[in-house]
């Protein structure tokens, strides 16, 4: 009894697996999934999408959803429940992608045998008579047996691989071209699968560190045991009259400079599997301070307690942002505020102990201001803002897409053509087959027939 039960269970599982396999390999399913994918992807362009950093931060997420509720009213809850604010991370999206990948994989595996046979298997050269009388592309050319030699040459000249068999006085030919096009669809599908896996690798193993501010000359640790230092930042005119931005960045590993490169938009710095992109820049000011003997004066930034002698660079988060600079030796405090107007820097100098205002104003670029026994010079500078990215999926994605494009070229522009010829006593019977592109093959077949006729005529003329 138990054996019978096992047998039945095994049978059911086998049937189930077969059905699932067949279902997954179906072209109808592929079409359905593609249509579904179009709809899902399209939804992401008609409903605002929550940015990834917002989705990963509870308070930012709540804030974003509150704005969405204001905009969509009661529909917002429905959109949220349906995952429409995060379409590209929603379970439906993931399910469609996974099913498409499975469908692609199963289709490819199913076709591998046919592909292999199509490339390496010996062709069937001798075909029955019915084959020559029922094929769609067929022709008969009056010729004698001696034409067999010419047939081979004509086909080879047209870049066909020719296999010849002689049996009972009849010469049979098989000729084909573009048999590597069998590989086309597996290559395309393989490329698609690699791209899907690359996307997964980017999502699960990639990371990015946005808004890495590099105040000039300062060493900014970025983790991984290394740090960055901005050596220079230039806003330049490009040859076409537009602006160009260039940041010279030094990479320090264990406090030793290991790389120095100029980073521009479209030209990131790469180090240790991490790419550093120039995303924006911010305003900064260099303050030089000398006493009456032209000796360097010590200054300290109040917010960071950073200290420097003679010269210090202060960066601002943007327009309206300010910093306090202390000169304890001379009992001075400078309030520096950056504005969007020209000149952009507003300075107030106070006495440190009682806060008495000593001077204020908008110093011009490079202008020297003497207050409380110290001569200050203010020079405009900029600092770069970088984004650090580690993306293990990029390389495989490019490789996958390249393989896919190669497969497409092979599929569409290297057609598979097959010919069978039988050279008997008084005629050449010719049959042709093409896997795709039937109209194109019609022309090719006509050309082959014409070339054979010509060859036979030339032979007769001799």
């Amino acid at each position, binding site marked *: 009894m138990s054996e019978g039960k096992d047998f039945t269970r095994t049978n059911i599982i086998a049937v189930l697996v077969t059905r699932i396999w067949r279902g997954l390999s179906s072209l109808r399913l592929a079409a359905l999934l593609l249509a579904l994918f*179009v709809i899902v992807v399209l939804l992401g362009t008609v409903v605002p999408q929550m940015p990834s950093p917002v989705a990963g931060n509870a308070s930012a997420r709540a804030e974003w959803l509150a704005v969405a509720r204001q905009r969509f009213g009661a529909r917002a809850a429905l959109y949220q429940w349906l995952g429409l604010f995060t379409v590209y991370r929603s379970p439906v999206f993931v399910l469609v992608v996974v099913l498409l990948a499975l469908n692609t994989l199963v289709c490819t595996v199913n076709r591998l045998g046919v592909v292999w046979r199509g490339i390496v298997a010996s062709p069937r050269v001798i075909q029955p008579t019915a084959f020559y009388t029922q094929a769609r592309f067929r022709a008969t050319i009056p010729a004698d047996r001696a034409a067999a030699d010419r047939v081979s040459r004509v086909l080879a000249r047209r870049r066909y691989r020719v296999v010849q068999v002689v049996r009972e006085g009849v010469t049979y030919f098989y000729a084909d071209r573009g048999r590597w096009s069998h590989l086309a669809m597996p290559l395309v599908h393989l490329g698609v699968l690699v791209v899907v896996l690359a996307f997964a690798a*980017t999502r699960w193993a990639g990371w990015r560190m946005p808004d890495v501010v590099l105040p000039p000359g300062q060493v900014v640790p970025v983790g991984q045991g290394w740090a960055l230092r901005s050596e220079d930042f230039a806003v330049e005119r*490009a040859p076409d009259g537009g602006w160009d931005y260039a940041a010279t960045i030094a990479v320090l590993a264990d406090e030793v400079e290991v790389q120095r490169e100029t980073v*521009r938009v479209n030209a990131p710095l790469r180090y240790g599997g991490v790419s550093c992109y120039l995303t924006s820049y911010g305003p900064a000011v260099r303050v030089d301070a000398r006493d009456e003997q032209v000796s360097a004066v010590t200054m300290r930034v109040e917010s960071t307690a950073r200290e420097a002698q003679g010269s210090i660079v202060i960066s601002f988060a943007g327009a309206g942002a300010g910093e306090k600079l202390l000169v304890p030796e001379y009992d001075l405090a400078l309030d520096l505020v950056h504005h969007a107007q020209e000149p952009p820097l507003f300075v107030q100098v106070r006495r440190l102990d009682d806060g008495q205002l000593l001077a204020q104003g908008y110093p011009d670029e490079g202008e020297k201001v003497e207050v409380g026994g110290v001569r200050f010079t203010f020079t405009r500078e900029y600092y770069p803002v970088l984004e650090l990215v580690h993306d293990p999926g990029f390389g495989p994605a490019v490789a996958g897409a390249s393989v896919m494009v190669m497969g497409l070229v092979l599929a569409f522009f290297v057609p598979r053509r097959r010919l069978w010829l039988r050279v008997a006593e008084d005629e050449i019977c010719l049959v042709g087959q093409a896997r795709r592109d*039937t*109209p194109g093959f019609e022309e090719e077949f006509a050309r082959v027939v014409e070339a054979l006729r010509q060859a036979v005529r030339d032979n007769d003329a001799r």
Partner: protein
Amino acid sequence: MPDDWLFILAFWGLLATVIAYAVQLLVYRRWAGWLSSGLAVAVLLAQGGGLVARGLRAGRWPLTDVYEFTLAFVAATVLMWLLLERWTRVGAGGAFALGIAFLLDCYPLLRVPPARRAIRPLVPALRSAWLPLHVGTAALAYGAFAVAAGAALLLLVRWAVERRRERLMLPATPLEADPWPALDVCDAVLYRAVVLGYPWMSLALLCGAVWAQMAWGRYWNWDIKETWSLIIWLVYTLFLHLRLMRGWRGLRLALLALFGFGTVLFTLWGVSGLARAVGLQSLHVY
């Protein structure tokens, strides 16, 4: 400017070419075929020459805004049509394909104000060797899909004519006297047009992804423009898969090809408006 004159010349030449192809469709004479193809080559030379002249004047590839891209799109449509005509030896779709090209050309020449045609400095992100590769391949793909839409229109008209003939029980025109290709030929022309465009579209997505990685550190960002480019690719992927299924040739695929071309036009002209309406930000807006 010489480029402007060349674009105007190409515009009127295109109109003449469409008329020549229409005449070819009606009278089915060999001279009409030569004339229309010759005119199409002349239009391609004028439009291509205009693009080269503008590129030389700007000192960069003339593919950086919608004005320039549409001009390149028109040139690509004419080029793809000529390739398809040579490949299929069917000239009947020319009136439709180049008719679409003519309508496309109305946008840069009649709708874009002169101030917006001026050559402007590029934003840093556009100063890249990937610009001609990504935008050029996209223009070629769009051109082929415009030609596919023309072939789809040819198929639809042919289908409507046959339906009418069947309904009225009129005798069929002898094949050799019929200037309109048979339905299966129209279907083959449509398929080949899509085949011409699909690899270019795939390549455009690939080049765009590499460029995006170079510029922004993200090879795919689900940016609205990227997403609509993917939608174009998916629609034509669907086209190629459906064609392998029984009962999906002819009329249905022609309608899908027209829908696909609709997605192309929307990606070119509609996406910015959609982004504004929905409140989506796009890295592709300069």
